[in-house]
């Protein structure tokens, strides 16, 4: 099992551009969550997808949007990039099981730099 994979590893964009980040969940997982981690900060929840729909959303503007595909993989899109969008973007996958606690497994992240 490859675990959670993300692509690309690194990305450099300029202000105003648009970016798409990709995530493949761990085998057997159907829920994908995205987090933004600025340098020296803890991750901030962006949104979560389940059954191809956004189920929860954090305090991020509409410039941040996402998608989940039938195979449970997911994309994060950011439009009109700002310097402040520079961060490590983490994808986490988890199962929707009958248990009360669903561990979120994290990928290595995509490092986005906006110039």
């Amino acid at each position, binding site marked *: 099992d490859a675990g959670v994979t993300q692509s690309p590893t690194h990305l450099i964009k300029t202000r105003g551009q648009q970016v798409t980040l990709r995530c493949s969940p761990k085998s057997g997982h159907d829920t994908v969550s995205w987090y933004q981690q600025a340098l020296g900060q*803890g991750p901030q929840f962006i949104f979560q997808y389940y059954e191809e729909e956004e189920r929860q959303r954090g305090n991020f503007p509409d410039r941040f949007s996402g998608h989940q595909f039938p195979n449970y993989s997911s994309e994060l899109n950011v439009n009109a990039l700002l310097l402040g969008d520079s961060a490590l973007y983490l994808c986490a996958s988890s199962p929707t099981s009958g248990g009360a606690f669903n561990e979120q*497994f994290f990928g290595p*992240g995509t490092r986005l730099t906006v110039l």
Partner: protein
Amino acid sequence: QKEVEQDPGPLSVPEGAIVSLNCTYSNSAFQYFMWYRQYSRKGPELLMYTYSSGNKEDGRFTAQVDKSSKYISLFIRDSQPSDSATYLCAMSEAGNNRKLIWGLGTSLAVNP
């Protein structure tokens, strides 16, 4: 005020020391309390989680939750250089796949 507060350190200890890490929080609805470890340029990995109040032990690691004080701790016994990493606390409300709310993370260096 942030929902979760965590001293970022850095913390530097000699090998074999007992390490104490902690977080405070303000949201009384939090029910799950987690500790993640993050190495440089990697994603966080779950070390331990605790439901509601109490203690949980796993090898050299012990997690404690005091909901009355809104205070959680992670203790590392016999610390090793390989424990050098950033330790993040995270919390969530009860329910399936609730979003995680994180502390800043504490940078730990264990010196041989």
